[in-house]
């Protein structure tokens, strides 16, 4: 812990990259799933999808060409600064939409409020236990012997994927792992902060990613229980307990979340896929609302069209972010979005949904075809 405490500047840089940058990047999408307000927390989780998608594109280009880590670092910082400035500009323009209506919280019935506070307290306590354990408990996972050395040797050598992570012998490019460069993103955080990549992956990123996951579930709870907000604390309590007791087999997403938090596949299962599920909830609303169904899908409002475009960009971004985590990410997220389109088409006879879902999957389909050709 000494390295952490002594490197306070590195800590500040990490705070900027893990909290400030995603919020700024996600501002254009901060209103997703909410008709009335924009939320900083929503911006934060959307910003992660953008951050990862941009990193995937930048890293993929340089992994396939120069394999120089410095090229990735410089290009990525440049692109992120531009996207953050855009987000800041939009955020300042629509700053009133971010105002919190605190009075509404106090206007609830007294007993109900106390009950909700108690339920919130318990659920937050369960989440904090998981955050605490992620910092203080070490999990002996064999896959870390592959992924973490990729990050560490990338920082040390300045080259990507030029040695076998297990033993350090020189090697040629392993395409399967190189096209899912989540460890290189960890190397990037290590490079900009000066903190060892192993500390970032195990001690810093793990609690942050757990909080990102719960923010997604909170947003989901908020959407599922928007007519009765009393359901949100109960939903969050049950989710947190289900995750903590989800170790019923080695393969569940919950097990991955609490044991291999800093690995790409865990991020895929616990952040990207739930995030796309959140988008699907919104997509379901956009394509199955009574108003749209009654009009025979002919006259969606201008506002509805705008929301759909934003949502489409977000879903596409999330599918690209999934490539960063695992090469299987492209299949899983495309299947999820595609199935959603098929379901809405079959059940509610809305053919636009299937075209919409297909359009969101086009980058992933191209990626999959490219992967098959290269390998």
């Amino acid at each position, binding site marked *: 812990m000494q390295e952490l405490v002594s490197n306070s500047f590195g800590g500040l840089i990490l705070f900027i990259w893990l909290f400030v940058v995603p919020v700024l990047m996600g501002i254009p999408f901060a209103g997703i799933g909410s008709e009335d307000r924009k939320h900083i927390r929503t911006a934060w989780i959307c910003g992660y999808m953008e951050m990862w998608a941009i990193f995937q594109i930048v890293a993929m280009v340089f992994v396939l060409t120069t394999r120089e880590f410095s090229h990735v670092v410089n290009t990525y910082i440049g692109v992120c600064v531009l996207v953050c400035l855009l987000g800041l500009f939009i955020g300042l323009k629509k700053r009133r939409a971010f105002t919190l209506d605190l009075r509404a919280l106090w206007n609830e019935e007294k007993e109900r409020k106390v009950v909700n506070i108690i339920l919130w307290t318990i659920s937050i306590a369960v989440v904090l236990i998981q955050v605490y354990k992620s910092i203080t408990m070490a999990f002996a*996972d064999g896959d870390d012997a592959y992924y973490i050395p990729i990050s560490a040797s990338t920082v040390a050598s300045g080259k990507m994927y030029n040695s076998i992570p297990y033993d350090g012998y020189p090697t040629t490019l392993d395409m399967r792992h190189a096209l899912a460069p989540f460890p290189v993103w960890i190397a990037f955080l290590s490079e900009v902060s000066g903190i060892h990549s192993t500390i970032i992956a195990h001690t810093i990123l793990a609690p942050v990613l757990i909080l990102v996951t719960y923010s997604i579930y909170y947003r989901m709870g908020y959407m*599922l229980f928007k007519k009765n907000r009393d359901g949100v604390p109960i939903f969050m309590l049950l989710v947190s307990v289900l995750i903590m*007791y989800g170790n019923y087999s080695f393969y569940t997403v919950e097990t991955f979340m609490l044991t291999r938090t800093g690995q790409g596949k865990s991020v895929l299962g616990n952040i990207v896929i739930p995030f796309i599920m959140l988008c699907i909830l919104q997509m379901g609303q956009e394509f199955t609302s009574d108003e749209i169904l009654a009009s025979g899908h002919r006259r969606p409002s201008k506002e509805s069209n705008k929301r759909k475009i934003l949502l489409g960009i977000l879903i596409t971004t999330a599918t690209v972010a999934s490539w960063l985590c695992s090469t299987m990410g492209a299949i899983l997220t495309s299947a999820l979005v595609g199935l959603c389109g098929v379901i809405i088409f079959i059940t509610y006879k809305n053919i636009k949904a299937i075209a919409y879902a297909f359009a969101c999957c086009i980058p992933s389909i191209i990626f999959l075809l490219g992967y098959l050709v290269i390998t």
Partner: protein
Amino acid sequence: MLYSFNNFPFRLFGDNVSEIWTGILQLYRDYTGTGMLAGVFIIAVGVLVYLEKDKDRRVLLVLMPILVFVLFLFPLFAWAVNRYAESEIYYRFLWLLPVTVVIAYVGTKILLFVRGWHRIVAAILLCCIITVCGDYAYDNEYFSKAENAYHVPQVVVDICDEIVIEGREVRAVFPADLVQYVRQYSPYVCLAFGRDVTVDRWNLYNDVYEIFELGLPNGITEAQLLSDVCRSNEVHYVIWDSDREMIGNLADFGFTMISTVGKYDIYIDDKAGLR
């Protein structure tokens, strides 16, 4: 280029439709463990089939899980996915089932019928049921108290600090139980054999591993054989668990013990020219 059902190496899935299906069911059984929470999930989806009226929620919470599950069991789909990825990771398709969301959603719907303070009691009761059906993550045998911020054993940190030379890489042979941590801490320490060699089912051959870990047929390592194989593989350091027996002494074959960290003796090859 198309792969036929019979030519493609399915491994876990086998070579024909019935074997693929058996493989899929095996994956499902492994994934669901005791099956109790999977059972709760199926009941929850069943409840929503009849009671959930909101169209947007039916898409994610009812129709999606059913379709994902049907697709997961479909052999042709498994075959197609296997064209792209390994069959062992096909279970990840089950990650598309919103198990946590569906169970929590139905549980919340039930609890919203309970009013006032009884809701807290009912919520705790429901949590208790989940704890009985599920399994506590931190009971996992692979969890231990972190010894440092790296989450690697402190002995590995100390050994690596001892052998690292600034400005160059060194190669060392570590006991099999430590290899997975070494390069997590220091990318400047290369290994004679890594974690991949120690995984039995991957069946990789490494001559240093054979002599260092497996030793002679009686399981004991011989110093001369070890020093020869290390030198031919340009291994500069040998990290030896002093609790293990060795025939002969590495010091007699050009290795010098430079330090001891915990129960591990650190030997350096005198001919490597590092000191």
